[in-house]
């Protein structure tokens, strides 16, 4: 789960709040680095390809490849992948995020071009400037500091606004959200409980603890289960019966059923500190 501060209300035309999770700055940096590596890989592969297929004037072909190829890749890569149906470059796909328009409308070509053209100024302009100056040996300390400072402002810009927007996102009206496909977890309440619990035992916990228990059950780590089972048994004053997993599953189902019944009556209980529901 993402931090609550990165969660944004997003109401569909049908009137349901889908609650989008914004991608964190770290995720986005990682996605960008992965994309850079991929691009470099493509360039290197093409270079090797040209070197092996005897092209006439090989050096010139390689020179053109790095001039034009680097430019086309750097700009085309992001634009091409983000205008596709998934709205994500390979790096973003790996990190489980995609680009969407902030207003929830279609992601237009103009928006994608705008957000990616800005990257030239955010990252590549100062770095290439610095690179050229360093190569010709005239990069003095001031210039280096300026280029790094410039990059730094844009680089850390996403950290200084609530929505983790990069300059390009701001201009293009887009943001990057998490979309992780996932299978539906198994049904923990499908089996009728074998054990019966007293009202007092079921009154110990609220929804927060129920969902923590759900996580433990889905995690299925024996040591965690043993600890939790021991804690519940001690609190409910139940004897140990040697079957921690079975006990926890039964307790989960019973607690869930009870809390859901109370929920239907409008008496939700957020956690164990909330007032105990009426008997």
């Amino acid at each position, binding site marked *: 789960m993402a931090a609550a501060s990165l969660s944004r209300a997003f109401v569909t035309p049908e009137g*349901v709040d889908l609650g989008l999770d914004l991608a964190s700055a770290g995720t986005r940096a990682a996605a960008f680095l992965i994309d850079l590596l991929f691009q470099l890989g493509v360039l290197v592969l093409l270079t090797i390809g040209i070197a092996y297929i005897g092209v006439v004037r090989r050096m010139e072909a390689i*020179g*053109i490849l790095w001039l034009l190829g680097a*430019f086309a890749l750097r700009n085309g890569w992001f634009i091409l992948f983000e205008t596709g149906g998934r709205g994500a470059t390979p790096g973003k796909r790996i990190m489980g995020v995609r680009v969407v328009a902030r207003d929830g409308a279609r992601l237009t070509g103009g928006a994608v071009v705008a957000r990616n*053209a800005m990257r030239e100024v955010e990252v590549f302009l100062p770095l290439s400037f610095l690179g050229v100056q360093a190569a010709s040996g005239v990069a003095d300390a001031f210039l280096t500091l300026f280029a790094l400072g410039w990059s730094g402002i844009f680089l850390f810009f996403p950290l200084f606004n609530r929505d983790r927007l990069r300059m390009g996102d*701001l201009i293009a009206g887009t943001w990057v959200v998490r979309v992780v496909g996932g299978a*539906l*977890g198994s049904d*923990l309440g499908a089996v009728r409980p074998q054990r019966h619990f007293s009202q007092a035992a079921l009154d110990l916990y609220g929804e927060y603890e129920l969902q923590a228990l759900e996580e433990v059950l889905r995690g299925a780590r024996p040591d965690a289960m043993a600890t939790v089972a021991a804690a519940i048994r001690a609190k409910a004053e139940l004897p140990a019966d040697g079957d921690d997993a079975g006990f926890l599953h039964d307790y989960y189902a019973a607690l869930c*059923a009870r809390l859901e019944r109370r929920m239907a009556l409008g008496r939700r209980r957020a956690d164990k500190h909330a007032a105990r529901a009426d008997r």
Partner: protein
Amino acid sequence: MQPAVNASRFRAAHQADWERLERLVALVEKRSVRALDDDDLIAMPLLYRTALSSLSLARASSLDRALVDYLEQLCTRAYFQLYGVTDTGLAQLRRFFARTWPGAVRELWRETLASLALTVAAVLAGYLMVRSDPAWFYGLIPDAMAQGRDPAASAASLHATLHSSEQSMLTTFATFLFTHNAQIAIFSFALGLAFGVPTVLLLLYNGLSLGALLAVFAGKGVGGPFACWLAIHGTTELFAVILSGAAGLRIGIALAFPGRLAREDAAMAAGRQGALVMAGSVAMLAVAGLLEGIGRQVVDGDGPRLLIGLVMLTGWLCFFYLPRRPAAVER
């Protein structure tokens, strides 16, 4: 016997629908919407609404966290495939060249005029400065770019640069020029962010160096051939630079004077529109690169060079500004 927990009954009733939706969404994400057959295509929006109402119900009646999480991500993915999906790349590209790009250029006409005025003023200034004092030339144009075309050169050597038959590394040079120019076009768009000031500076600098070169050639009496040499690709190239400058100006103006819109919204509208113009400029620069790299070597006469340049200019003007039948244009 019924299971005790709401989520279990709920899953039993709807899980098949959710899984079908998940399959369809995955298919659309992986391939395209055309991978679906007619039945699936009709079913997908219905399944999406089913899943949405399942989500609402699950949030209100179930404490199964996994179920709610699953439905949230499924609905989100389905939403973006149903509401946020764009056309195929080819259709987008066709529409871009047929309608969106000229439309965006037309809407930027004020900025384009301003950009043109700046360029013309800078050319004049550069010309007059170098004509009055040739020393200015060395301040305006770096040696690497001048390549011997400076005020000290003789008329004959200047003339020779216009008709060189030197072929070595020609394609590399043309490629370099294209990437360099395209880079400048992107910068002059993106730097509009700083209220357009760097964009104006880029336009001025571009004009100044052009004026300076013009002054050198005109001073030695080869101004005419130089203009023709420049015209063959220059009309396209300068037009592209002016347009991307206009795109940058639009952003700068929108940020400085957002008018009735919120600053953020104004920047967004300007950014999306400017990006289209800028992307088109890059395509124009590719054409200019071809004209420069190939056309200029093949066509050696001054007259034909000028003619090609003028034809290109007229072509672009007609393409952008001739009125066309209105259609449901989407940006």
